[in-house]
């Protein structure tokens, strides 16, 4: 698949095209996932959040993180939009968190050990591409997945290029599948 910005092709290895089902499979395997959310999904000043698709995307992201209990790092100035919703995230720079993720000795956001799967959404395309390249080359200990509406070849797996409508649909499906999965796991545990 052609990347959203066509010149971000870096070499022979490209990301696998992901969909909600494949992301679920990767999340199921992961022990310590992390979710990185960037400023691209923050509403512009004066925007009506009741109709803005970015607000809906943010809402889906919060639900996904809650369903699977994934710690969230907000980068750029994304923190404040989540704070308004009462949703707890750790503010950092994208470069700062990528630098930590490439260190196998880092103890992770919760101090439980380095993360093994990182979900990205809403990070400025070209800086995300560079950060994903860093992790592709120098962080063999983790898997990167992008949930943006733009295909990112430097990730291990990436949603394809798609419209806002389809993107929201993908995220909603991911959220619902995680909820169902959670219910199944809880049922099994009770049994």
């Amino acid at each position, binding site marked *: 698949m052609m990347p959203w910005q066509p010149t971000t092709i870096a070499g022979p290895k490209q990301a696998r095209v992901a969909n909600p089902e494949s992301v679920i499979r990767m999340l199921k395997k992961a022990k310590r996932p992390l979710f990185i959310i*960037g400023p691209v999904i923050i509403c512009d000043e004066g925007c009506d959040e009741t109709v803005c698709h970015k607000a809906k995307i943010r809402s889906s992201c919060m639900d996904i993180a809650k369903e699977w209990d994934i710690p969230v790092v907000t980068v750029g100035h994304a923190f404040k939009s989540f704070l308004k919703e009462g949703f707890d995230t750790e503010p950092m720079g994208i470069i700062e968190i990528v630098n930590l993720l490439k260190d196998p000795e880092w103890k992770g956001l919760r101090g439980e050990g380095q993360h093994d799967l990182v979900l990205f959404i809403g990070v400025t395309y070209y800086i995300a591409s560079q950060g994903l390249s860093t992790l592709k080359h120098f962080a063999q200990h983790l898997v990167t997945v992008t949930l943006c509406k733009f295909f990112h070849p430097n990730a291990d797996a990436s949603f394809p290029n798609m419209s806002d409508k389809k993107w929201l649909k993908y995220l909603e499906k991911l959220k619902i599948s995680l909820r169902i999965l959670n219910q199944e796991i809880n049922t099994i545990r009770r049994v």
Partner: protein
Amino acid sequence: MTLKGIKELQNEIWMIKNLKANFGELRLNRNWDEPMGPTSKPNVTDLRAWDFKLLSRFEPFYAPFCDMCCMCTFGKCDLLGKKGACGINADAQQARTFLLSCCIGTAAHTAHAHHLLKHLIEKKGENFPIDLGMNIDIEAPIMRTVIGEKPGKLGDFRKVLDYCEEQLTYLLSATHTGQEGNILDFESKTFHAGMIDELSKEVCDISQIAAYGMPKGEEDVPLIELGLGVVDKEKPVILCIGHNVAPGAEIVDYTNDKGLYNEVEVCGICCSAIDISRRDKNAKIIGPLSKQLEFIRSGIADVIVVDEQCIRTDVLEEALKNNSTVIVTTDNACYGLPDRTNEDADKTVSDLIERRIDGALILDAEKVGEIAVKTALRISKDRRNIKILPDLKEVTKYAEDCIKCRMCERTCPNSFPVFDAIQDAGEGQFSKLLEVYEICYSCGKCEESCKADLPLVSMLTKVGGHYLKNQNYRIRQGRGPIQDVEIRKVGRPIVFGEIPGIIAFVGCTNYPKGGEEIAKMAEEFLKRNYIVVATGCSAMSIGEYKDKEGITLYEKYEDVFGAGGLVNLGSCVSNAHVSGACIKIANIFAKKPLRANYEEIADYILNRIGACGVAFGAYSQKASAITAGINRWGIPAIVGPHGTKFKRLLLGRKDKKESWKVNDLRSGEVVEGEPSPEHLLYAAETKEEVIALIPKICIRVNDTPKGRQTKLTNYIDLHQKYIETFPNDLHLFVRNRNDIPITYRKQVTEFLESKGWKPKEAPFEPSLMDFKKEEGR
């Protein structure tokens, strides 16, 4: 001198044992009795130990643009998880390409300095004095510290450039296949390239200040007209693009000498514009390099004179579309044009007017002055009726032809909503196109990739020009170095932290959301009593913003190098004065010897002077060299999101306490330090992230408690304002209770308790330098 005289002198020298001298050096260092320091004209490895100390704190972070190496015939080699045919791996390859980038940038500044110096020596003579006036004794702080000599006359700079070129050759050779292979050694060489870049810039700016009579650091220099709307289109217009002032300066001199000043408009884009206006305050500045394609497309310029660096390489092609005439003036950008350097000027004018030649290469700046003016005067009338841009109806018609491939926004470096804007334009609505125009830097990639061949840049230019008729702003004339007298006033409050920092907005216009963000960042810190300086395109971007009252920051804030002052230093070679000011603080305030004393000065700057560079739109190889140059002095820099495409940053890890230890030279103890500055080169994603980071990156380990309180107050304020939360690493910067800002005492105290914070003593004389033997362990 007669042969006999020389022999007598040789005999005298021979009789004094171990005296090493030559005539040039004797003249060069007259009246300077400071002993020579340890590192005069350092070779590639002479400052390696200092570099390694920096690199142990600020480790290289690499973000490959490409997985492959394509530099030799063994390749392409895929370096993802494997080594290439020469044995290089991915991180060393990034370090290598960054060194290469810095060598290119340094070569550009060094060639620029060489071209200009040659011209100025031809014009003024070898012995033309380097005199920066009564208020500047330390005329060349970088040269003094690196070379160990000071300039007395223009000819003295030749030796400096000889040294630069020698070092640059060694550095470039290290990037050849099968040479350097270690990332730290690559990085040390990169710092070295940056240092050479600093020297070249200093030579360049001091030469032009001295020889062209540019401002010598005086406060309150005049305001210069800036913007697309400042040019009188009724007159013949000459546009200068690039960085080398010589052709532009000769053009204004010619118009003045011939009494044609009121007959011709001389204007410029990019740093040439700034420097021409330093030569003649009546010259006009169109704007930063981002205005280039747009302005050429507008067809306003009758004659386009290009010199060197950051010129669009299709300038000739674009100019020919609207019958503008192009004159190229340096050996590094000839564009295939015939060499008319030795041709009779009037014959060349005639050939240009009659279109017998598409343009001319003229390697004689004075001749350029004559030919450009004569040509502009004669062709402008004929060009007035040329219709160059589409009218608004045609813009709509073009937009209707859009085939909706969306390649415009996919190839836009910033993914600006060009596609949506074109859809609206197809319905006669131009507001979105206007919004794009205001933040676009007209790289033209959208137009190149448009599958319907729409002239998108011309459409944008038309809409922008139609709706924004009064693009008329003000910028301070570039004033050059900071005067010694100013350094005496601010040295103490800067070192003690009472002036919370010096922020230098430098570099190009590859901004993520337009130039207004630079001005807004600058104003935030001006209001907080930081010293703000600016150069090059960033200085212009600051001038292109007007507040609600319709005035620019240059009119609103004082032109002083002091708290809350805004100073335009000049063009990008004037960046040398940023580190120059820091070096002068070390010398004038702290009495540190400069002469060939690089490491001690850099160590002082790193630990005591809260300065930082912000290159939010950095794009070129020169920008990479500039950051490497200031970084080796211990001055951190923040680049914008596109700066990650330089592929290499230098990051600290605040969670690694070991890396922040310092030597307390007074007590002789190795003591716990703090992550200040936290990074040496960091890329921020947004304006908000930059603003929240600057106050923290201006913290220095040597701040007094009062100074630290001021810096932390700014850090907390701005973090809360732009990220909307209390900074979660604040405890790392509070050494003891005296550092706690009064206004946030309760909040900070509670936070410190939650972190299990323990007070510690601030070191008396923090340093990364090794203890001298008698100083202890």
